[in-house]
Structures are given as C-alpha cells and as structure tokens.
C-alpha cells in the first residue's frame, strides 16, 4: 500500500505541482525567476563547487533520461562488457564529483557569512534533497553494481507505466530500500522544483547562440514618413 502511495500516486502529485505551480509562477511572478547566483558574494569556492556540480549532474541526468526514453538503444550500448565497464566507471566518477562538489557548496553556504544570509529555507531544503539524491545514487552505484543495466528492467518500465497512467509499482517493490529512497526523492525534488531556485534549469539560454548582439525594442510602431 505504501509503495502504491509513494511510487504510484506521489509522482503524479509531484509532476502536477511542477507544472501547475511552475506555470503560475512564470505567469504571475516572473521577476522571481532567477538563478539566484551568489558568485558576487563569494567566487573562489563557488568555482570548485558549481562548475563540477553542474557539468557532472547534467551528464548523469542525461544518462537517466536516455535509458528511460530509449531503453532498447541503451541496452545495445551496454551489450559489450567493455562499454558497460566504461559507463559504470564514468558514472561513478561523475557521481562522486557531484557529491564532493555539493558538499563544498553546502559548506560554503554554512560557513560564509555573506552567502548564508542569502540562503532561504527552501534553498536548504533543495540542498538537502539534492545531497540525499546524489548520496543514495553514489551508494547504489557502489553497492548494487550494474545499475545501468537493471535500471532498464526496473525504473524504465515503472516510469513508462506512470506515463501511461497505469502505475506498475511492482517493478520497484522488490528493490532495496535505498533504491526506493532514490526514486521517491527524485520526485520530491520535482515537487520542490517550482517553489525554488531550481526553476533556472528551464531557462537554459540557448537562444543566445543565434540572436543578434544588439537588441533594440520599439515601444511605438516606427511610422515611416
């Protein structure tokens, strides 16, 4: 029963919050949409935390998404042991980097007086949830080897069942508690997402690559004489 609530119902609540609150916030209070960078207040430690954190977590997230979206392709990719080893080792390395980087970022927020002032309760909540997520992730990678393969037979079908509005929680039921925690916490982060600074994730400024350098805005139509 608790599995059903945690893995069958809660993901819907989380995604519903993500979308509805996200849209509401974007429409009503767009001013609040910011990365809330604290580099201005402290720059040196941030470099060693923020850069590895962002690049590593982006790659790890991408791997999770790819295995969910293209399970057969992912399976083929891991067909050879050498590729499997390589992926597992890379994943573990990146996971450890995120863990160290996040720890650094958390210490920075605690120890630097200026940065701790601009840290809200929601910020702490986000940091705690992210720490739990990467810690359980690294722990799973260490103790329950070949996660990149068994993910295809557990998480992928479970996630697809959620997409099809037919939650099949039995895919997760038999897994160790730490994996369940990792799965639940993932959706918890999605639920916190629209209430926090995490919204900056959807503002990746890719349009910058193609826009002209100078931007001129006319308030009135230019009426050619």
């Amino acid at each position: 029963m608790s599995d059903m609530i945690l893995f069958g119902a809660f993901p819907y609540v989380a995604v519903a919050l993500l979308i509805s609150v996200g849209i509401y916030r974007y429409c009503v209070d767009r001013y609040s949409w910011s990365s809330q960078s604290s580099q201005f207040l402290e720059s040196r430690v941030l470099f060693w935390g923020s850069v590895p954190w962002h690049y590593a977590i982006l790659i790890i997230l991408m791997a999770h998404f790819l295995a969910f979206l293209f399970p057969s392709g992912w399976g083929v990719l891991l067909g050879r042991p050498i590729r499997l080893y390589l992926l597992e080792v890379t994943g573990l390395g990146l996971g450890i980097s995120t863990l160290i980087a996040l720890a650094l970022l958390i210490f920075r927020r605690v120890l630097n007086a200026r940065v701790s002032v601009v840290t809200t309760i929601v910020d702490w909540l986000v940091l705690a949830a992210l720490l739990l997520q990467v810690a359980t992730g690294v722990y799973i990678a260490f103790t329950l080897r070949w996660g990149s393969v068994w993910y295809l037979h557990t998480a992928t079908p479970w996630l697809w069942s959620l997409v099809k509005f037919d939650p099949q929680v039995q895919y997760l039921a038999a897994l160790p508690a730490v994996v369940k925690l990792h799965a639940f916490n993932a959706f918890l982060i999605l639920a916190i997402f629209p209430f926090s600074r995490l919204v900056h994730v959807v503002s990746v400024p890719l349009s910058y690559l193609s826009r002209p350098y100078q931007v001129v805005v006319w308030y009135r139509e230019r009426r050619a004489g």
Partner: protein
Amino acid sequence: MNIRAQVSSVFHLDKCIGCHTCSIACKNLWTDRKGAEYMWWNNVETKPGTGYPTKWEDQERYNGGWERSGSQLNLKLGGRASLIGKIFHNPSLPTMDDYYEPFTYRYSDLTSAPAGDDQPTARPVSMVSGKPMKIEAGPNWDDDLSGSNIYAANDPGVVQLSVEEQQQLFAIEKMVFFHLPRICNHCLNAGCVASCPSGAIYKRGEDGIVLINQDKCRGWRMCVSACPYKKTYYGWSSGKSEKCILCYPRQEAGEAPGCFHSCVGRIRFLGVLLYDADRIESAAMQGDKELVAAQREMILDPFDPQVIAEAKRSGVPEEVVKAAQKSPVYKFVKEWGLALPLHPEFRTLPMLFYVPPLLPVLSMDNLGKQKLADDFFTTLERARLPMQYLAGLFAGGNEEEVKAVYRKLIAVRLQRRHLSVGDLSAEEAAKACAAAELNSETVDAIYRMTALTRIKERIVIPPMLREQAIEAGMDPEQYKQEMGFGSRLPPKRRW
C-alpha cells in the same frame, strides 16, 4: 541610412566640484534598498585614482568591452558558446570585495546604552550579514586622494605613463586631480546588451536608453563583466542585475534625470543626437586613435535638409528632430568638438561625453599669474596633467584630439579674460582663437552655453510621447524603496 535618436549627455569636468550630490540624488531615487546598497548608478571618482569598482578600467582583469579580431568585433569576455559555458562560474565577475561591503551604524546603541563612564558608540555593521565589521572601502574611498601611492599610483592610466611623468604627477605641493562623475553611457554598441544570455537587456528604439528587463533577467551576470564601465550591477539579494535607467520615468514626465537636476555645479547637459545606426559596426571597428573621429562622424547634422528627410523616412518624429536642433550635446560634441567619450577604445560607442578639465592642466608652473597665449601652447605639452593620461581617458590615446579641445578651451578663457578683466590684449585673444580654429562668435556661444544657460537650455528632453504613461497616476513617493513605476511587485525574494 537608418537614422535613430539618442538621448545623450555632456559632463563639463571643469565645472565639477566633486560634491557627490548627483550620487545621493540617484541613490535616494533608485537604489535605496536591500541588495542595491552598493549600486552607485551614478558615482564620482577622483582622477588619477582607481575608481569604482577598483581598477574598473583594467580590462585585462575584468574583460569588458569589445576586441577587434580580423574583420570581426568580439566581446572580450568570449564568444557566444564560451560565454554560455561560463554561466556556472564567470571568472571575470567582480565580487563584492572589488566594490565594498555596504555598512551602516548601530545608531540605536547611542540612545539605548546603559549609563556608564564611557561615551556610547555606534558600531559599524555590515548591511549584508548584519554583523559588526571593519570598514575597509567605500564607494568613493579615494575621494580627493590624489598623489596617493595606494590609489592614484594604481590608476590603470597612470601605470602606463613614464616614471618621469608619474613623479611629476605626484610631486609634493604639485599634486593634481579632477573629478570624474560617471553614469551608464547608454552605448550604441553596448557590451551589456550583447552579452546577456537571456536577451533581457535592450536599447529603447525611441530614445536609445539601455534598460534591463527585470522579468527576463535570470541572473547569469555576464553583463556585469561585459560592461567595460562596470555600470551594470548584480543585485545580490534579488538575483537580478540592475543599471542606470537615465531616469526615463522622469524624462517621460518632462523632468531632467535626478542626477542632472540636482547637479550643483550645473556641469550636466542633456539632449538628443541623431545618428546613423547603419554605421555602428564600422565606427566601432576603427583603430584606437580614430575612434573618436569615427563616432563624431556618425552623429548627423539635424539642420541638414537631407538628414531631416532621412529621419522622417526612418520614423524619427518631427518633434524629436526639433529637439535635436536645440540639443546642447550636439553643439558640444559635433559643432564645437569640445566633448569626448570616455575610453572610446572599449568600442561600445558610449553616448556620454566629457569636456576635459582645463584647470589641472593649466596650473603647471602657475605662480598665481595668468599666462599669455603663447605660453599656454608651449606649456600644453609640458602640462601638469600629462596629455598622454588625458588622451588615454578620452581619446583612445590620440593626443591630438585632446590638444584640439584644450586649444579651444584656452581660447574661450583668454577671450573672456580680455573682455571681463581687460589685462589681456585683443590680439592675444584673437591669436588664441586662431590657434583653436574658432571665430569669436563661436567662442562667445561656448562661453554662454558653459556658464550662463538655465536648465531649459542645458537639458533639452525630447517629447517622449507616452500618452498613457503609467506613472501619471502614481505618487513617486509611494514607490520609494520599491521597484519603480509599472512593476506591481516589490523587488524582494519571494521564492
């Protein structure tokens, strides 16, 4: 031709007394709130000096402005992709320590301290952390401190001078300085606009004011680095960048910007310039020493019938062309060639111009006596404030541009001396005019505009034609410490 109008300004540095009234007016209007304490949209620097933030002119450190590479103009901060790659950590971002940690004093301790033998004191506390702190810097920390081997000697412009020139500059009892008030230059080729990954910064087509759309800003803070003048500021509490708005709400109501209106020395002139927007890139591509001339070339004569016709075709309203004809800035910059842009070599085409200061130049070897014209021209080269320093500030190193301005300023001074004191012959004054290539009517007009004009002549705001200006129905006082006009939510972090 693509003619646009630009609200531009001239600051007459000979008239600046360094009182900081402009800074205070601006602060009270716009940046008197949490996260904005350190933002001085208008500040006044002592030159030679390190400025605010410290050594802002040193682009090897901050990577602001543009660079030429081949036939292209690139942001010194990096190409588009490399810029996006830096959003997680921008290595060229100045931090709070490059400005100062804002502080206040615990004034309440003065009245609430228990009775004792000692005078109660108001301890300084940080406005960031709220903790007691030692004040080590401020927005004008080196105010009037010329000759200082901590500040003036580290001025990026002074560092480039010869040892001899530096010694001359700092000789005891011969110290020299002038004030340099700075606001956003509302550049034509703005670095901040070009660097914003979100595309939140834009130039208003009608008047050329550069603004940051607060709802679009995501706090990637590239603008802070890319502006070579360091006139965009990151709001450490709101997570948004902010900059001088040239008091557009005031201008839309027909009022002068706060800093202009409050200027005690009446050094500030404001007016419209018409320019050809198609020439922006080619002007910004010129060699360092040709930049001033190229920028002057872009500015068009509002009396020229062809320009008037083209302006009409480009959609510049007739009233704006009329305002351009009355513009004091046009006179100073183009007609008289007296005002120069600050650091044109940053290639942003700044639209705030400065009349360089004459007094610190002239007082070389001045034993309380005015000198004759001949003397001036021979001493200009040996001036107390090296021409090279001034050329580095106002002409991309082109000494000829600066000298030409000084010859004109000297001609004005000598003609007035002749007319008002009379100890100088008409021939001397005429000789100075000839050397400056000015006729005596123009000299008189320059004198009039510099010294005698009232606010309506100094500040000619074009009609901004916003019939339904939001602020018409709002009480500005009510919005103090708020975001400003038109925003419905206060600039506080809510999420």
